[in-house]
């Protein structure tokens, strides 16, 4: 037994006694609270995972039966008439997304280069603009697309849809581009400059190739986002039950098709919606996972 030399009146000893007593008497309560709280966190994690599993399972279960040859090769048919498909919607989505990408990616990347290379007021304004753009609701972007394209050019069209989708994709590519270009080590830039290269050459031969994985990641993510947007297209492309490759005319698109069919009381139309949903989800997931793989390889190579 350890002899206690300090008299019990020593305040330090008294405090120690009081602290230990508080610690011991509260131990059970504290440990229980901790266990419960951590358990709740685990439960919430489960709750977060459940919808994803639920959605994917249902989309696959209900969408796969809709997939047949006709589904992919025929255009939509009205309710009750068999043999229809979503080929017109696929074509529309592909055309609209392609146009949006072709216009937005160069502009976005050049803007990203601008942001990566300069830090003045102009760059700050541009950055702020891009951030604000990402916060604009997609329905308002659709309204803008309507006003800018549909009104001024005499009607709904695929181009109007591409314009709206491009508006959504642009800030994503801008910021992803800036991040990717900033990631290029300054030493590479300086070495090239010291060798007498022009800035444009440096951009073309040093910055862009080095930043390419990051750029690809950003573009894939932007495309995935653009493909899935519905509201802007609802206001701009007009819909078309026939196959239409000409973007100056009204077109159909997968998200619009899904939206229109979802609320119909006809089972075969809903079935088509599920099939199209599966297609859309598959495409978007492939792009998202693909962009992650590129990002992961980027990190591996950098080490």
């Amino acid at each position, binding site marked *: *037994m*350890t*002899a*206690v*030399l*300090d008299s*019990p009146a*020593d*305040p*330090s*000893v008294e*405090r*120690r*006694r*009081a*602290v*230990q007593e*508080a*610690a*011991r*008497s*509260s*131990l*059970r*309560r*504290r*440990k229980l609270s*901790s*266990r419960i709280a*951590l358990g709740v966190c685990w439960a919430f994690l489960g709750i977060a995972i459940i919808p994803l599993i639920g959605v994917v399972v249902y989309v696959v279960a209900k969408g796969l039966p809709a997939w047949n040859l006709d589904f992919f090769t025929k255009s939509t048919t009205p309710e009750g008439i068999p043999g229809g498909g979503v080929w017109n919607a696929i074509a529309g989505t592909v055309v609209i997304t392609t146009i949006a990408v072709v216009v937005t990616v160069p502009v976005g990347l050049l803007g990203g280069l601008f942001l990566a290379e300069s830090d003045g007021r102009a760059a700050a304004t541009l950055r702020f603009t891009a951030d604000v753009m990402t916060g604009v609701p997609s329905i308002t972007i659709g309204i803008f697309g309507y006003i800018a394209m549909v009104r001024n050019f005499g009607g709904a069209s695929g181009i109007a849809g591409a314009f709206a989708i491009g508006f959504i994709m642009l800030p994503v590519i801008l910021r992803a581009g800036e991040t990717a270009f900033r990631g290029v080590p300054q030493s590479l830039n300086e070495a090239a400059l010291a060798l007498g290269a022009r800035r444009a050459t440096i951009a073309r031969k040093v910055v862009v190739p080095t930043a390419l994985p990051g750029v690809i990641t950003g573009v894939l993510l932007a495309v995935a986002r653009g493909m899935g947007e519905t509201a802007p297209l609802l206001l701009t492309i007009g819909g078309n039950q026939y196959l239409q490759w000409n973007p100056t005319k009204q077109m159909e698109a997968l998200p619009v098709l899904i939206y229109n069919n979802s609320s119909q009381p006809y089972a075969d139309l809903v079935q088509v919606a599920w099939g199209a949903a599966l297609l859309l989800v598959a495409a978007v997931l492939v792009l998202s996972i693909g962009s992650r793989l590129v990002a992961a390889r980027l990190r591996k190579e950098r080490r």
Partner: protein
Amino acid sequence: MTDADVGTPSVEDALTAGTEEAMGQPPVGEVVMTLADVAVAFAGRAAVRDVTFDVRAGEVTALIGPSGSGKTTLLRALNRLHDTVRTASVTGSVRLGDLDVYAPSTDPTLLRSRVGMVFQRPNPFPTMSIYENAVAGLKFNGVRKKALLDEAAEAALIAAALWDSVKDRMNAHASTLSGGEQQRLCIARALAVEPEVLLMDEPTSALDPIATKRIEELVVELKDRVTIIIVTHNMQQAMRVSDRCAFLLMGDDKAGELIEFGPTATLFSEPTDPRTLDYVNGRFG
């Protein structure tokens, strides 16, 4: 990782283990902590091994040796900080008085109310005020009475030589203090819980020389009140503040081992082991 990782101690065991007698400060020189064949390994690879020595009350025991010799790893084993590392395993025996530190029935949170720690870089909680930092340990341990909190905070801040500087700005944020003051706040925070042993992991290595000197003076002042085990890579510091030293050195298997343990004066002037002699003569490290 949850607190349940302790195994399933019965709470009654946790409450009674660790004896009431330790409340008072034992007489100077009385053994408060014993280490026997202590070893720490990560994923099977030993980081430190074969450590056996006693820590005595009212003394400052220093763990010295070149970097990589496992001093910090050993220190952290004393308050079970390795519990959170899945790959870590601690073998051997560590006893605090009658308490087996690594017994399944020993609760780590209770243990840490008796064995406090001060870290290498000052780590006051940035969202808390000076007062809240000082009483943080008490609150974690379930102390609620304002009177006790205030009294303990004041006593601890006085002991840490910080009271005069902060008594009028207890609600200011901890980040308004200088580096040396922040470290003293961390010391006060640890002291407020009235631990029996205070572990200090190179507490001055992130501080300027003046702040370092003040903390060293503090360590010597504090040893009457709490037994101190300090890791330092600075031999002169060990000579200045410590009563006993444990010299650790990395062996061929990359694990640190205890080479020699003894009173500081002896270790530095007439060490038994030639490797100790080399180290204190500055031939490596």
